[in-house]
């Protein structure tokens, strides 16, 4: 994924350790999307992706940190969100990204669905941590 300067100090973050923190992360991303000028549909998609990835991080990664920032690429603006945990990692990424496959008792659509909800999706996983980074552009 291209570096959009999301490491800047303007990033906000929420530590996720319980399901109510997932709600806080969602609210943070929603507010940021509104401020960045994303349309209602794009806002909803990004917030839903945040919900999926945030909950995955909580259930399978034992919790972590959600960071979000407004980013610019030329003239278009967007929202960047990063999910970083220090969990056991995902053993088989291809399998995990398959529709309907789950190691828990969910629907198996969280990861694959989240990828379809956003414009850019990047996942890196190894034993000791998983990082998912997503971007949704305003148009």
């Amino acid at each position, binding site marked *: 994924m291209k570096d959009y300067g999301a490491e800047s100090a303007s990033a906000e973050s929420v530590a996720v350790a319980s*399901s109510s923190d997932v*709600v806080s992360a*969602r609210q943070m991303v*929603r507010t940021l999307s509104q401020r960045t000028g994303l349309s*209602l*549909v794009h*806002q*909803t*998609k990004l*917030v*839903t992706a945040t*919900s*999926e990835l945030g*909950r995955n991080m909580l259930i399978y990664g034992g919790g972590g940190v959600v960071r979000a920032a407004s980013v610019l690429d030329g003239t278009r603006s967007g929202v960047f969100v990063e999910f970083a945990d220090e969990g056991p990692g995902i053993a088989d990424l291809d399998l995990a990204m398959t*529709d309907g496959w789950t190691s828990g008792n*969910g*629907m198996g*659509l*969280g990861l*694959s*669905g*989240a990828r*379809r*909800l956003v414009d850019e999706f990047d996942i890196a996983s190894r034993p000791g941590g998983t990082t998912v980074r997503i971007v949704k552009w305003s148009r």
Partner: protein
Amino acid sequence: MVDEGARVLLDRLVTGREEFVAQWTGRVGEELRGRLSTVELSRELGELYEAVVAGLSAGGLDGRGESFGEARSLLIELSRTRARQGFTPTETARSVFALKEVLEPALAADAEGARVYLQFARLLDDLGLLTTEAYVRTREEIISSQAEQLLELSTPVVKLWDGVVGVPLVGTLDSARTQVVMEKLLQTLVDSDSTHAIIDITGVATVDTQVAQHLLKTVVAARMMGAQCIISGIRPQIAQTIVALGIEFGDIPTNASLSDALRQALKEIAANAEDDVRGLL
């Protein structure tokens, strides 16, 4: 058991009882600025004073020891009442610490008294911390009971028409709420003899796979009881998100608005009634 320091302290506390309790009540009363009556305060602190004296005479200066059991339970009770009445933790703890201020000039005048005073201060610090502990615990109890009440409040099941019940969902749908919703819905279906249930998700901000999964479970449970479920309140952005996520609602009817869902339910009920009449003829 009683050491020399405790005996000196005990003597002075017993001798100066009236004066100390009066001063203590005065100081705490000042702090609380008339939000508790002086009579009540004087009774509370008087009892506490007696319990501390009793604790000292029985087992020395260990605030967490067995001999202070009575004093501790009085303090916990006091903290609980204060927490419920809306006093701050500082004000609650100061009720104990104020006794130090009262005793300081009376005890610290001579070297022997000063030594005893320091020991006693440590005991009071311990008891003061105890009030904060009890205060926080009470607040947590209040919060968790309110959360429970909120869960009940936020999931009403209403009768919309003869044979049709509605469940307006607001906020987030987690496992705990789904459980409450499902129980209430199934019971209402039985009680009101309804054949149709409309679950309205207009007030649910985010419909992700977890929410969808919970909705599907609720619908399946209602179907097992012979009721038809309609999900209404699917806004355009939610519809697009659900499709992108890849969630299938299968043959569960969905509608944009509650009124459409109600119309559909009534139509089905009318059709069924007609079939029944034909069957009789």
